[in-house]
């Protein structure tokens, strides 16, 4: 059992508060991803769990026991670093068996364990090589093996894929996933890539400026963002956010922003007039040449990507309004042509001036 709790955790470096009041409970076997823009405190939080940073306030508990003052090696954790951090002067085998040597495991047992893990991660052919002879992807797998071999109860991973190219990243991402399914251990994973978070996590912890913004499953984060920051951060291409105002026109509230004006759905009828931001994801914008739709906008740019086509519209502001169309059906649209857009009313969000979601999502 390895239940990890972060209780009111904070960390300041001098006057700078890097982490503020983080509360999080991670269940045994969960794959939790800490995600956010750089500087949001996710890595600092991870390093506090590992024991490389001392918290300025709050507690870290593993299985109910407060571990703030325990050395990293006594916490039963394993860690994979962004730069793989292999020992350059030792062979791959020596790297992998290092943890076992530290625990005074006899050579025979060590060799067996190393062989077992090498099979699991498919680096058996590399065992007698030096780290400098391994490619980026191989090195990271050796790093995984080195951690796996000590059977930690929890795996900490600090942006392990950032230094790899896109193809390798996808490969190793699948590897991480596979390991998690196989080992059924707790994984705490830090990344700035929202795609990684969405695909790997059981639960996502979104952080910004040292604070936890939202915790939820990928689905929840995607469909029920708690504010415009989260809504904008997840999803690619990102959600369209139109800042404008809500006006009451007799019965139903209407939203106005630049060239766009539309009636808000029934569920939003309690919306107060004033400045607000409307959100809708590009994939939820319907496109038609047939004249049906809520709004008409001229096309600014067409990007046929093969699987989809992205269309950028001029909505009367700097930032283009984006819509996604499947396939290449709309690829031949000319710039300047007016297209009618329909917004799926179930996928509309309204955010207040402070960014918090007022309406939309699950309610």
């Amino acid at each position, binding site marked *: 059992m390895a239940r990890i709790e972060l209780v009111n955790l904070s960390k300041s470096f001098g006057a700078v508060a890097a982490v503020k009041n983080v509360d999080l409970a991670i269940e045994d076997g969960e794959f939790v991803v800490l995600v956010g823009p750089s500087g949001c405190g996710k890595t600092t939080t991870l390093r506090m769990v590992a024991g490389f940073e001392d918290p300025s306030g709050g507690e870290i508990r593993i299985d109910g026991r407060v571990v703030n003052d325990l050395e990293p090696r006594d916490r039963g954790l394993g860690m994979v670093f962004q*730069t793989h951090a292999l020992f350059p002067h030792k062979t791959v085998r020596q790297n992998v068996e*290092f943890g076992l040597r530290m625990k005074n495991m006899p050579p025979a047992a060590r060799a067996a364990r190393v062989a077992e893990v090498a099979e699991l991660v498919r680096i058996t052919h590399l065992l007698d090589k030096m780290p400098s002879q391994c490619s980026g992807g191989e090195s990271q797998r050796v790093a995984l093996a080195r951690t796996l071999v000590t059977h930690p109860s929890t795996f900490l991973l600090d942006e392990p894929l950032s230094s790899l190219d896109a193809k390798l990243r996808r490969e190793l991402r699948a590897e991480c996933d596979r390991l998690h399914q196989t080992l059924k251990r707790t994984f705490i994973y830090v990344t700035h890539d929202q795609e990684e978070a969405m695909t790997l996590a059981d639960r996502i912890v979104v952080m910004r400026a040292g604070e936890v913004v939202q915790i939820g499953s990928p689905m929840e984060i995607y469909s029920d963002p708690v504010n415009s920051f989260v809504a904008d951060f997840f999803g690619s291409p990102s959600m369209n956010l139109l800042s404008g105002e809500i006006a009451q026109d007799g019965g139903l509230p209407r939203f106005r922003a630049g060239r766009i004006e539309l009636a808000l759905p029934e569920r939003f009828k309690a919306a107060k007039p004033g400045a607000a931001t409307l959100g809708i994801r590009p994939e939820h914008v319907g496109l038609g040449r047939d004249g049906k739709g809520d709004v008409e906008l001229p096309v600014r740019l067409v990007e046929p990507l093969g699987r989809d086509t992205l269309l950028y519209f001029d909505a009367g502001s700097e930032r283009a309004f984006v819509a996604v169309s499947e396939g290449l059906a709309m690829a031949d649209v000319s710039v300047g042509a007016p297209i009618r857009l329909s917004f799926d009313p179930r996928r509309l969000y309204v955010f207040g001036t402070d960014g918090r979601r007022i309406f939309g999502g699950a309610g």
Partner: protein
Amino acid sequence: MAMTKSQRRRIAAVVRYGVLSLWALVAFFPIYWMVSTSFKPDNQWFSWPPVYFPDPPTLSNYLNVWFGAGQYDVTQYAISSQKPLVSLWNSTVIATTSTFLSVLFGSLLAYGVSRYRILSEARMFQLLMLRMIPPIVVVAPLSLYYSALGLLDSRTGLILVYFLTTLPYAVWMTKSFIDEVPREVEQAAEILGASRWRTVFEIVLPLIRSGLVATFLFILILTWSEYLLALIITKTQVTTLPIELSKYQGTTEGRVYGRQAALAVGITIPLMIVGLIIRKHLARGFSFGMVRR
């Protein structure tokens, strides 16, 4: 008048080679003179006009000074035959031991400063500057203190002092190497169960091996050529090579140029070889954080 690139280059090359060659001559001549004098027979040591190349070259100076063959007739003084060799041994032992201690403890201190900030930047500079206080101001009480402790005229005494005076350099030089070892490698070792000491000796120090060697050789040069402290602390039992040379010069009324030169060559050549080996690292040893890496 706008010069073409090649015209400008040619002029620049002439100036450059001219000035550099002039200085090369200035730099090299004394060394050449020392070496050539060491091979000169005694009638050419200070003749007029000066003899620039020994004719014929002879090994008698070396044989006499280092191996005690033959006497020098004019002053009827023959230096005790094996003395320079004994001094050579002393110098070697003292220099290597104190340098080893300096590099060992210096690198441990440097690790502490680099990773745990056991000394602030101000203290680091103060440590460096400590070395800049002229040793002359402490040699008198030092020799009294040593005589009270029984360390006067001993190798241990000199080793201790050299350890103290070279430690600042050792710390500064090794710190710049340690700073380049990525911290994540150490953290990986720590979380895998390595103790701090093991991390230092099994992970960090092996990774800066070439830097440690360069530091060692650099400090070796300093301890090998040190004069004042050796002069005060050594009396009769122990002498180092620089003192040996000085004694030789004193007792032979300084005219035994050829023999002196032979002695000087023996002291200097090892140093030059070492210095040339580490020449790429000299810049780093002297930079003290003032040069961007």
